């Protein structure tokens, strides 16, 4: 069990690293897909089947594809003439290291207080549906409005100036 977990984690982290390190943007996007797939597997290993599949459907099926489209539309995949890293990459790296250090320290420091053994979960799709329609119905409605607004907003932002003025 543990071995599987370490393998999936390794794949995920490797995918994520590749996603931020590779020079070719398209490769970054595909590595991101690998990271997402790994995360979906992690969700599955946590008995969150629904979220895992939603993760694949939304992230690999939509977000990565969107990213890829954006890359092609902005000619980002063509080799850049300067470096791929920002001028202030060192500062960024330092700050990142600090953040990670604190996060890891927090996780490790709270080690004794963490629950060790998991309770048997009961999260069938039906339970999720019921929860969405009862306890979480208001957030659901808000998300619906947000998604509608985001869709319209994205379309208008990305629409051609000419088409808009027509």
């Amino acid at each position, binding site marked *: 069990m543990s071995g599987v977990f370490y393998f999936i984690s390794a794949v995920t982290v490797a995918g994520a690293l590749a996603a931020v390190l590779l020079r070719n943007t398209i490769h970054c996007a595909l590595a991101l897909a690998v990271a997402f797939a790994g995360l979906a597997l992690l969700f599955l290993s946590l008995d969150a089947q629904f979220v895992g599949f939603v993760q694949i459907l939304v992230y690999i099926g939509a977000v990565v594809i969107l990213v890829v489209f954006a890359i092609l539309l902005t000619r980002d995949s063509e080799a850049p003439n300067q470096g791929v890293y920002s001028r*202030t990459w060192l500062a*960024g790296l330092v*700050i990142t290291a*600090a953040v990670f250090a604190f996060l890891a320290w927090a996780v490790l420091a709270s080690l004794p207080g963490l629950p060790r053994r998991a309770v048997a979960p009961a999260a069938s799709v039906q339970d999720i549906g019921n929860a969405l329609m009862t306890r979480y119905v208001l957030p659901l409605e808000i998300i619906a409005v947000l998604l509608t607004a985001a869709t319209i907003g994205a379309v208008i932002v990305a629409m051609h100036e000419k088409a808009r003025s027509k």
Partner: protein
Amino acid sequence: MLIQEGAAAAFHPQLTGAASVAVRILWLIPVVPIIAAGIVAVLKQPRRRLAAGLAIGSMSFSFVLALFAFAHVVASWASGFAVRETVNFAWFHIGNEAVAMGWILDPLAAVMLVMVTFVGLLIFIYSTGYMAHDENFTRFFCFLALFAGAMLSLVISNSLLLLFMSWEIVGLTSYLLIGFWYHKPSAAAAAKKAFMTTRVGDVLFLLGMVWLFAETGTLLFYNHGAGSLEGFALGILLTQHAGLGLTAAGAIGLLIFAGAVGKSGQFPLHVWLPDAMEGPTPVSALIHAATMVAAGVYLVARVFPLMQAGAAGIGTTAAFGSTTALEVITWTGAVTAVFAALIAVAQDDIKRILAYSTVSQLGYMMAGLGMGGIAVGMFHLITHAFFKSLLFLGAGSVIHGSHDEQDIRRMGGLRSAMPVTFVVYAIGMLALCGFPLLFSGFWSKDGILEAAHGWSLSKAPFDLLVFGALLTAFYMTRQVSYVFFGRWRGHGHAHESPRVMTVPMCLLAFFAIALGVIGTPAWAWFRGFLLNEPAAVNFAAFASSDLLMLMGASTFVVFLGIGLAWWLYGNRSPAAEEPDKLEKAAPWAWAALRNRLYVDEIYEVTVLAFFHWWARVADWLDRRIWGGIVAGVAMAFRGWAQLNRLIDTFWVDGGFDKGCEELSTSGGLLARAHTGRVQTYLRLLALGFVVLFIVLIWSSRP
């Protein structure tokens, strides 16, 4: 369901209960045309076929449902159950009071439903031909469908409030349709006039409604014993006295009747109806002959218990006791009947003659209601709806065929040019005159005359109505001989109307004759149906010498009128400029009649002059008094503002300027951090996170 056996007196027992299917789907009858109107309203102008199809389809649907409801009522009646089913619901609550609405199915409503949907359907079909060349075809059908829906909801409403709302929508559509050709100033003026005049009656109606609500706490007509027309509420109303010797019931009844006076064009509020003929002819036929103007009569019939309350010896025979309210109704009706008939004699516009004729016939109905009860008045309403809409459609056909000519002196000889129109028009004319035995108009008018003859209070209404019958025969014969006989005096060639117009007329003509069958004294089916009595064929009824004498008299009067008119006008074909025969005989009387007995002029110098004067007074008050006060207040504030400005400039501003300078300087400093680079911000964010974290750890140190 409570069961009433046999012919016990009228409708006192409540026959409501578990609603049948017929009544549960009754609401669809008005709603479907209204929805159709809504859809047609958003159609584009060129979608003519769709608009007409929707309107006609919705009307057919309503007609089928109405037939279903009617069949339900008839079947129950035939098996001894009188139907009065209601569906009530609370519309909204004010405090503890619920304002209830509802609909009702009883014989009265059922008869009206069938009449309105059937006549409406025929007129819709006719309109597709009549309006074929109008560019606002879709708008026309939108209004027409809206009117039909509102009228139907008026008919089925079980609440005075719902009835009033439909009443007003009907008035609105009437306004819109009279002014349909609004580019004609006369049409616009006529629409305005119709709207304003009927509003006078409606205000009184509203007052009556409010009063009724205040007294009984409900506006439902029937509600299992708790409705305003039922025993308990009537009892309350009868104990209240309203002055002038009226009970509250009578006074409220009269106020409601005032609404009916406005809508049904009774004297003295009849002036709008002849002017309303500026609208398209199908509109005149549907709204201003068959349905809307009859709504006043229907309203009186609907609240008849209110009018009748307290009458000595409530009964169903022709000679039941009368009340002040009923007397007022009778006199108004009788006077209107003669008054309008007189005016009609001297008119030359084909539609205007019919309009005055309508006013006159509505007077008959009112008088019939006042003296003979619901059955008599309603029977005339139904028969009149058929033959008068027939006449209007015929007139429309004539106008259509003779190139929009409306002056009867410029027509003539159309008998050969428009044979179908001539035949159906003649049928309508004979029915209206009350030509004996064959035509429905004879039997319904006879019923009214019979009731008037038996009225115990005075014989004067009877005399007036008989005189009215004579005049009716006279002016109709005059019109027909002008239009259809003699030689053609118009321009161009007259032509027969298309099939889509003549077929509805033929159907109406059939009913103008056939409907008489259900209201003869020998088989008083209609009366029995409305009043919940058994109806049997009984030819012995004719044996009564009174009745025979009455029929003889009215036959004589009709023949006299027709003969006189034929003697004066028959086949003469006078030129348009030539003065009328009667004008030569009695110029002053002719002038008076021709000018509609100067009612409009009287209003001009009284009511309108008063309003002009009042408007001037109000204007003066507005300018001098209120305006002065406003100007004074404005001056005061201006002074105050000046003061404030001084304080502001010399005191507040200095400090504010200083503060702004400081802000600007510090803003400039902060802007340095604002590089415009996203990653800087993100970095700062992460840095802030780290700092917060450190603070957290530091503070949570043991």
